[in-house]
């Protein structure tokens, strides 16, 4: 449970100015607002919780450093963070090229929602694991586009901005990414309780 964000009504741009002026509470608000999504994207890309945490820490550190030079209205903090996170993940993936392993059951975090039944939770966990494994089989750019669009819920233009490509290119990546996921998951659809 995140602590109450007393500055939840303040825009990211304003928080950046406050942070640059030495307001410690602004740092807390920005961190609690953005770390979960940065961590989630890094985890989708890297499939490793510890590495994802390192990337999240690095991305936020870069945000703190750029705060004094932040230009209000030019870019959204979330978009900027997604771009930095994507680049950091790409760097790590290239460094570890060939050493990646598919997601293991134990590496997939427990679902945050505790209310569903045991059976529903198990199915949910199996599906999350299967998707994470399938994501790792996609080419890096497809994985990034699918993660940003369907898991981080960005719009196509926002994905295009983060990735530095056209909206048409995003749509192409998403289409190929979805086909790729379905192809990988086809053999397990019965176990996952899916029909397609």
């Amino acid at each position, binding site marked *: 449970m995140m602590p109450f964000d007393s500055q939840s009504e303040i825009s990211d741009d304003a928080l950046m100015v406050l942070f640059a002026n030495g307001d410690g509470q602004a740092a807390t608000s920005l961190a609690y607002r953005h770390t979960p999504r940065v961590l989630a994207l890094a985890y989708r890309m890297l499939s490793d919780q510890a590495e994802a*945490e390192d990337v999240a820490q690095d991305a*936020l550190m870069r945000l703190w450093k750029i705060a004094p030079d932040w230009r209000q209205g030019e870019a959204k903090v979330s978009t900027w963070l997604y771009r930095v996170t994507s680049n950091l993940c790409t760097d790590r993936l290239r460094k570890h090229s060939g050493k990646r392993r598919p997601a293991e059951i134990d590496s997939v975090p427990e*679902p945050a929602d505790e209310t569903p039944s045991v059976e529903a939770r198990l199915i949910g966990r199996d599906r999350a694991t299967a*998707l994470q494994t399938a994501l790792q089989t996609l080419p890096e750019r497809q994985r990034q586009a699918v993660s940003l669009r369907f898991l981080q819920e960005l719009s196509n233009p926002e994905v295009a901005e983060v990735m530095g490509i056209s909206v048409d290119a995003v749509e192409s990546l998403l289409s190929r990414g979805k086909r790729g996921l379905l192809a990988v998951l086809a053999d397990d659809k019965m176990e996952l309780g899916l029909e397609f």
Partner: protein
Amino acid sequence: MDAFDKKQDQALDALFAAAKAADPIPSGDLMARIMAGAAGAQKPAAVPIVAPERRGFGQTLSDVFGGWAGASTLVACVGLGVVVGVVSPDVVLSYLPGAELGLGDDVFGLYYESEL
């Protein structure tokens, strides 16, 4: 979109929903590391407190007269006034109200007496 495409999209939606529910939650350790980074990168907010400077009598006097330039000008003006008053007191007395009533004699009487 045909029925097959719709089923495929529904299947993917179910998978994405499961994945989102399993999104990792930032640990306390991660948040502590991030906040430590913020504290290290942040400039202090408070204006630095500067101890008041001890000022001597001469410095205070200088400040009252506007520094050495102001004090020098004041001294020069006073000196000029004294010189004018001594050399040609009539000029000074002509500007003093009541000079014709002999007030000037009372004021400068001592001087004239010493002259006599």
